[in-house]
């Protein structure tokens, strides 16, 4: 009986992942996954609920209620932090279970290694995720990467400890400490704009930690579900890395953009006013909006929606061009735009829209920088050379709403800003858009 429930659960998990692949079926995917999870958890009791005391049930109920409460109260702009936080909890749980198994029962030799693996990955995910959350909240600055890189050499070494040392509680706790510290400093050295990679990578690790916990307690469903999460997390991680033309190792090494080179501009940019932008937009036939992290920071989504409506009322075509690593987690911009009811049919990926820019009248860049820097195509010495970018410089007119000329994450100047077809509107994304909308009423 239990076997059949578990089989159904595993099949449901696989179907859920399949359904996550299309916008029209994705909400059903979540229900499938929930059902699969409920069956899997139910089966773990093996119809014997009396083995568990009240402390156990109270913990589950309170934690569940807390989970619902947190998830309902959080703002959409805080989504990256929340995903990071929950992810850390999952990793921490796997790590704690591995610790208990290591110090409680006499595990067979194979399982010893698996348990240490699970414990290290779980604890690393736990502390790394918490640091990522703090970074996303802007509470932590970048950390020098040299020391961190030397320290990280210890992480692989500790896997060999059980081969040479008699395992006692002291050694196990030492390993936990190393894993926790490595998680903290590894994520601490990575800058904010690399967070999409970090979040996806930690997500993958929490799946791998769960999978290895499945090996220790001999649960096939745990292994299957953990492996599914691990694999899907790896895909997102690699997609994010490819979108920056960097390797995972390079991202994890940290310190990107710390070296400021060639930060000067040959000439002054052309500055513009909200009135001018409104006039230019009203004469356009096609407009492409490129949102970046600046839109999220300024909470400008509602203003974006309002401007989109204004333009569409004038029969102007409006599209959104979204770079894969825009924002702080994979798909961040898409979620923010969906929140204000912008149709996902209007959101385009880099590959789908890049050929359209040369026939676009006006491109509006909202708080994005490196992902529209043409140096990625032309300057072989640039740190972002080879990174796929949105070719907005090919459009007839580019308007960049940005507070200053300060460089983006890569720490380099963006020649787009001084291009002949570009104008700068020096203001906050939200304020800029609201002023443009106001000016429209006067045009």
């Amino acid at each position, binding site marked *: 009986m239990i076997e059949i429930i578990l089989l159904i659960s595993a099949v449901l998990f696989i179907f859920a*992942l399949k359904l996550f*692949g*299309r*916008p029209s079926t994705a909400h059903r995917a*979540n229900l499938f996954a929930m059902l699969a*999870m409920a069956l*899997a*958890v139910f089966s*773990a009791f093996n119809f014997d609920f009396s083995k568990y005391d009240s*402390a*156990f049930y109270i913990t*589950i109920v309170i*934690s*569940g209620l807390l*989970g*619902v409460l*947190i*998830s309902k109260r959080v703002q959409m702009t805080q*989504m990256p932090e929340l*995903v990071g936080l929950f*992810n850390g909890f*999952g*990793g*921490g*749980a796997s790590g*704690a*279970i591995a610790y*208990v*198994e290591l110090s*409680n*029962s006499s595990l067979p030799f194979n399982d010893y290694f698996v348990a240490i693996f699970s414990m290290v990955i779980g604890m690393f995910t736990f502390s790394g995720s918490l640091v990522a959350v703090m970074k996303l909240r802007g509470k932590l600055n970048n950390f020098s990467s040299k020391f961190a890189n030397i320290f990280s050499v210890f992480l692989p070494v500790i896997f060999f400890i059980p081969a040479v040392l008699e395992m006692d509680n002291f050694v196990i706790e030492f390993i936990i400490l190393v894993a926790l510290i490595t998680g903290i400093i590894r994520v601490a050295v990575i800058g904010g704009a690399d967070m999409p990679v970090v979040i996806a990578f930690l*997500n993958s690790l*929490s799946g791998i*930690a*769960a999978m290895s916990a499945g*090996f*220790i307690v001999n*649960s*096939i*469903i*745990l*292994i299957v579900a*953990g*492996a*599914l*999460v*691990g*694999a*899907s*997390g790896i*895909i*997102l991680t690699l997609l994010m890395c490819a979108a920056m033309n960097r390797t995972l190792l390079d991202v994890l090494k940290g310190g990107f953009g710390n070296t400021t080179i060639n930060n000067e501009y040959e000439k002054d940019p052309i500055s513009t006013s909200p009135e001018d932008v409104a006039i230019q937009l009203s004469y356009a036939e096609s407009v492409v909006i490129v949102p970046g992290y600046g839109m999220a920071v300024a909470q400008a989504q509602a203003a974006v929606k309002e401007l989109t409506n204004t333009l569409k009322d004038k029969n102007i075509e409006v599209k959104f061009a979204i770079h*894969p690593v825009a924002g702080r*987690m994979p798909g961040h911009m*898409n*979620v923010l735009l*969906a929140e204000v*009811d912008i149709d*996902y049919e209007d959101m385009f*990926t880099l590959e789908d829209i890049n050929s359209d820019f040369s026939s676009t009248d006006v491109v509006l860049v909202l708080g994005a920088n490196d992902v529209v820097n043409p140096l990625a195509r032309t300057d072989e010495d640039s740190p972002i050379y080879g990174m796929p970018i949105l070719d907005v410089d090919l459009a007839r007119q580019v308007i960049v709403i940005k507070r200053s000329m300060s460089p983006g994450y890569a720490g380099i100047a963006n020649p787009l800003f001084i291009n002949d077809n570009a104008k700068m509107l020096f203001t906050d994304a939200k304020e800029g858009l609201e002023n443009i909308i106001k000016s429209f009423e006067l045009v």
Partner: protein
Amino acid sequence: MEATFLLTLLITFLASFIGYELISKIPQTLHTPLMSGSNAISGITLIAAILIYPEVRESQILQIIVLIAISFATLNIVGGFSVTGRILEMFKKND
């Protein structure tokens, strides 16, 4: 469900392969809900905690550690699915 180590490894490989194949063509629009949904699934480690909880009766410290793991995993599962539902709700109303 118990199986030999080798068979378990095979299952692990197959599950990873299926996960990889299913997700490799996912559109960018769904990256966030996918991540948040798979994140909730990783809380399935709750099962391991449920399985070992009755085994740690003798040690109060270990029992507390398992209860912490249960709390973390439950938060991960319930919070994760709930937030994924919220995100997907926004995509649904666009249909």
